[in-house]
Structures are given as structure tokens and as C-alpha cells.
């Protein structure tokens, strides 16, 4: 075990996978000499050379499109989007080719590309360096979507994503890049895609969340326990699609109450699907309304961003709503 932050964990995942499998290549803006603007790819060019660590021209559409072509041919590209807010030029390639190439070629070709990049807010990034845009990908059949909340998962999930046969959108909450350090195994391991993690057990209410909001939710649940005696079960979804419905239902059987917390805007944020799934398939478990604590339905603000993001107060409001129903 070594103590690592998330950047180091991701870097070691890439390095180990590139050593293990020469089909793994990295491409993106500034991923080579610069090592990426957050240094996730630092040093890779020195070890693997510029053919496997490609500094590309400034076009996300080109990066993803070319990565898909590389994957069709047999490589395992990991494409970096410098900030996930810049992914939209690639949206046509993602919807048209990445998510559908297996389908539209009758299963003859597939594009196991990992598209990864920093996401989410909290670092004064303003409108275009803070977005949580997972919904666009979760709604797109053919993609898997992942967001780790800690170094251990980041490494294990990235390795699983690279080894899998399906395209994965891999979202990295940039605020967690250096703020959390923990022990990460030096031996090879993966964290399976599709499995949530119960971060904290609790019997009163189920709180489903992911990314940086895992930590906010834990904070809020501490206050809730101290102040009101509520025991909150905190579930880190980790994989946003296919999300772990079993884990949610299992917890709900115990608690009968559901709160979903995410940074993305509320309307059609992933909280909507989780709520709808429960209202459709397990309404009998519910003792109270489902509550969502989310980013607001506005472009991410530079000013007052801390008030845009879910915080302890808003999480506690939601907990009260379902506890005092």
C-alpha cells in the first residue's frame, strides 16, 4: 500500500495498464509534455513515447473520433477531455459512433474507448470548468458512466474501464484530485463497474450520491446524527450507468426513505432516474416522499458557487423532509 491522492491513483492506473497491454494509448490536449493540466498523465510520455501518449490538436471531436477509429482497429485508447465541459464538440462522435458502433455494425466492431476528464465544481472554475454533465451520457444507450469519489476507487475503476469491452465515460471530480489521500494497493486490482459502495451504514434514511457529494453527504449526516439522532445510510453510486439498483433497493428495504444528492442540475439529473425507478418499482417501500438535493437549473455560476452546490444545510433540509413526513 502507498498513500496516494486521486491524481496519483489515476496516473498509476494508466501507467500500469500501459505496461500490461501495449494496445493502451493515451491521447488528448496537453497530455504529453505538459502531463495534462492536472498532471494525471504526468511522465507517461517519458516512459511510453509520443506514439502512445499523443498531444493532439485542439479539437475534442477529433480526439474522440480518432480514438474510436483507433479502438475499431484494435487499440485501447484513453482519451482525455481537458475539462469535461469541453466534451460537446465530441458529442456527435459520442452519440453517433462511440455509443452505437457495436450496434450499427451488428456486433462486428466495437469501440472500447475510455473518455476521461475532470468534472464538477467547487474550485471557482466558472461556467465552463465546473459542469456535472453525466446525464447526457447516462441517457445515451451504449455508454457506461463512472465517477469515483476516492483514490482507491479511481484507480480500480479506471483499470476496469480500460479492460472492459464497452465505451466508458470516466468522470473525475477535480476538487477531489488532491484533497483526499488514502492507501492504495500497489498490486493489481480492479473495482467492478456497476457496483455501488455503502460508505456508511444507517437505518433511518438512504442517501444515494456520488463524486464529491459523497463527502458533503457524510458531513451532513454527521450533523444530522448529532443534532437529530438520524442514522443515514450513505451509498456512493460510483457507477452512474448501469447504476446499482440492487444496492439502492436493499438499503430502502431497511430505511424506507430516500434522498439523492448530486451536483448536476436538478431537471433530468440522474436523481430523477433513481427517483423514478423507485417510484415505479418499489413505491411500497417508501415511508416518505423522495427528496433530491442538486445543483440548480442554471449554468454553473462563478459567483457564489458554494451556494449553487448542495451543502450541509440543503442536505439536512431534505433529510428533515423525509424524516418528518
Amino acid at each position: 500500500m502507498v498513500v496516494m491522492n486521486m491524481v496519483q491513483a489515476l496516473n498509476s492506473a494508466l501507467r500500469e495498464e500501459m505496461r500490461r497491454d501495449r494496445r493502451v494509448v493515451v491521447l488528448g490536449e496537453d497530455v504529453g509534455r505538459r502531463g495534462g493540466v492536472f498532471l494525471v498523465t504526468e511522465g507517461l510520455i517519458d516512459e511510453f513515447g509520443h506514439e502512445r501518449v499523443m498531444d493532439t490538436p485542439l479539437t475534442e471531436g477529433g480526439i474522440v473520433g480518432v480514438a474510436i477509429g483507433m479502438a475499431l482497429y484494435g487499440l485501447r485508447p484513453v482519451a482525455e477531455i481537458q475539462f469535461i465541459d469541453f466534451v460537446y464538440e465530441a458529442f456527435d462522435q459520442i452519440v453517433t459512433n462511440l455509443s452505437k458502433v457495436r450496434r450499427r455494425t451488428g456486433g462486428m466492431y466495437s469501440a472500447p474507448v475510455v473518455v476521461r476528464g475532470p468534472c464538477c465544481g467547487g474550485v471557482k472554475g466558472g461556467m465552463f470548468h465546473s459542469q456535472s454533465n453525466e446525464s447526457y451520457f447516462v441517457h445515451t444507450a451504449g455508454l457506461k458512466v463512472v465517477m469515483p469519489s476516492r483514490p482507491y476507487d479511481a484507480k480500480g475503476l479506471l483499470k476496469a474501464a480500460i479492460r472492459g469491452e464497452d465505451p466508458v465515460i470516466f468522470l473525475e471530480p477535480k476538487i477531489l484530485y488532491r484533497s483526499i489521500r488514502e492507501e492504495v494497493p500497489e498490486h493489481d486490482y480492479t473495482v467492478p463497474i456497476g457496483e455501488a459502495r455503502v460508505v456508511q451504514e444507517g437505518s433511518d434514511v438512504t442517501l444515494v450520491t456520488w463524486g464529491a457529494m459523497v463527502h458533503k453527504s457524510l458531513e451532513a449526516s454527521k450533523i444530522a446524527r448529532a443534532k437529530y439522532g438520524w442514522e443515514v445510510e450513505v451509498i456512493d453510486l460510483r457507477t452512474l450507468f448501469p447504476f446499482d439498483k440492487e444496492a439502492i433497493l436493499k438499503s430502502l428495504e431497511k430505511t424506507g426513505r430516500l434522498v439523492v444528492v448530486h451536483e448536476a442540475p436538478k431537471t433530468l439529473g440522474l436523481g430523477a432516474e433513481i427517483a423514478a425507478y423507485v417510484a415505479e418499482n418499489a413505491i411500497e417501500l417508501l415511508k416518505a416522499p423522495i427528496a433530491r438535493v442538486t445543483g440548480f437549473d442554471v449554468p454553473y455560476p462563478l459567483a457564489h458557487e458554494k451556494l449553487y452546490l448542495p451543502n450541509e444545510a440543503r442536505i439536512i433540509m431534505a433529510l428533515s423532509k423525509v424524516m418528518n413526513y
Partner: protein
Amino acid sequence: MAHHFEAHKVEEVLPFIDAAVSLRRFIDEEGNPVEETKVQLSSELLLKMYVTMVRARILDEWLLKMQRVGRVAIHAPNAGQEAIAGAVMALREEDWLFPSYRELSAYIARGMSEEEIIDRAMANADDPLRGSEFAVYGNEKYNIVPAPVPVGAQIPLAVGAAIAAKILGHKVVAMTIFGDGATSRGDFHSGMNFAGVFKAPVVLVIQNNGWAISLPSRRQTAAKTLAIRGVGYGVPGIRVDGNDIVAMYITALEAAERARAGEGPTLIEALTYRLGPHTTADDPDRYRSKEEVKLMERLDPIVRFGKYLKGRGVMTEREERDIWKEWGEKIESIVKKCYEKPSLPVSVIFENVYSEPTWNLKEQMEELEESLRIMKELGVKVE
């Protein structure tokens, strides 16, 4: 309804008559040689070229008929553009092709049979693409990646495949084919630029057929030619007579060999003409005159190449007739055979979304099965 035509002469429509821009051509409009080819082409190869175009033309007519009787969803007619086969014949077996939706002769050139093409067009039980889409064709057997319908979206894929081959040290070339319309898309821009920067072993062929549905190519861009775009990416661009199959072959061969030798990409602008409607859903009388089409018919690549072959003693009139007759009969019987094939199972709806179906798909499959039972009960016919 008054149809609105612009007052333009054929010379304006068809850039390749424009003397102001150089055009590579080996056979003129009357079927006479223009320039001696440096490469000696065997009679066998020349005949294969001719037969490939004939097969595509006959198949094209069948697909039109099949669409009319509802056996094919939509067809994008190929007539007039068959010489693209020449470019594809310049590839080797191990090379990859990323075509568009109007290149029947290209698939035939790569070895695809009429039966395979018709199965695909009908989306019957033998359709290799499992009923996922219309008008596109491909098969890994031939290293042909079927096109996405959004035009041009295959361009970066071809460039990526070429870069991958280069990284892996394979001497493999990727070729992609797309229309004049596709050159306006971001995918063309990014694909060309990546190709230039990474010296990708890729051959990019623009089938400039004068029109993108109703937009004439000279309105698609204000550039004098499309080949000239190469300059902006450090990629050599060349303009060829796309109705001259020999010019297509030799130009593509040179480009492929350059790519194989590590010298990077080539952009080929092939000037051709779409004689038919854009697709079976189109009505070209709304935007172009019958006279224009009539004038362009004299540039038919098959007629022209036939004259050339006959003029040089490669093919006799009788052989010519026999080829048409033989393939006419063959293809007719293939169509009949394909008509008898069963349809795809309902389960294709859920196939090939992921490598393994995710839980939501399993739930939804059950919902579908349940609904099929209910439909029986209710006596509702859905399909």
C-alpha cells in the same frame, strides 16, 4: 407548385468541365486515352473494373425496385458514380475501408457478393448488421466498417484506424469515401488535421457528385476546388475525373503506396455526378433540371469505360452484352433467393448495445415479451 431553378449552365454545375482547375484524367469523355498510364494495367484488371461497375449498376436498379415494392427501407442510388470502384481496387486485402452510403461498386470491388448486399438492404435474417440501419453496408470479412448515417462521421474513424495501424507497425492503409457535402462538417476538418499532424496512412476520397441533396457543390463552399483544402492541413490534394475508373485506380494506388511508405495522407477529390435522385425519398425535379441530368448522362462512367475497352480491344461487343446478360440473370436469381429468407428475430432490438446486456435491458426485454403475450390476448397486431 412552381419549381425554382437557378439559371446555370452545366459547366457551372460540374466542376470538372471547368478548365481553370487541373483535373487528372486518363480516358476522355469519348473513351479515348488521354495520358499514358505509367503503370501497366492488365486486361484482366481492366475487365474486372468493368464487370464491377456493371454489377453495381444492375444491383442499384434492383434496390430501387425493391424499395418501390417496400422490401427495402430507403436506397441511395449509385448510378453514375460507379468508378469509385477503381479507388477501392487500389487497396490491398489487409487495408481498411470506411465508406459512405452510395458505393455499391466499392463493396463489390472488395469482394462482397450481391447476396450479402441484398441481405443487408432488406435487413433479413442474414443481414450482418442485424437490422440496425438502412443504406449502409460493411463487414469485417472485408475490412469494411459500415458508415454512420450522419455524413462525414466516418472520417476521423478512418484517420484513427490509420494511426492505430501505424502505431502497431502494420503496413495497412485506411481509405475513407465521403461526399462533397460531408466536407463542410467538423469531422472533415478534424480528420484532415489529425491526418496531417500524425502523418496517418490514410486516403481520403471526396466523391464530389455535384450535389448534396439540393445544394450544388459550388454553394457548399466558395473554394475553387475541394482538393485545394489539403493545403490547409499540409495534406497533398489532387483532383481527378471521378468518372474515369483508370484515373481513380492509379491516383488511389499512388496515394495508398505513399501512405504505406510512411509519407502520410492524401486527399483525392473525385469529380462525378449523381444521375439519380438523392435517395428514393427525394424529388430532384424540385431543384435541378432534367436537361442537366441528360447532359450529364453522356459522362456515364460505364459507357465511357466500355468504349475505351472496346476501342483498345480488351472487350468485344459480344463480351460486353454477355457481361450484362450474365450478371442481370445472376442478380435476379439472387434477389429471388433473398426474398425467401426469414426476417430477423425480435430479439435484435436488444442486441449489441453492450458487450453484455445491462440490467435495464433485461427488464425491458421482459416487458417486451409480456407485451407480445398481451397483444395476442387483445388481438392487437403491431407489426
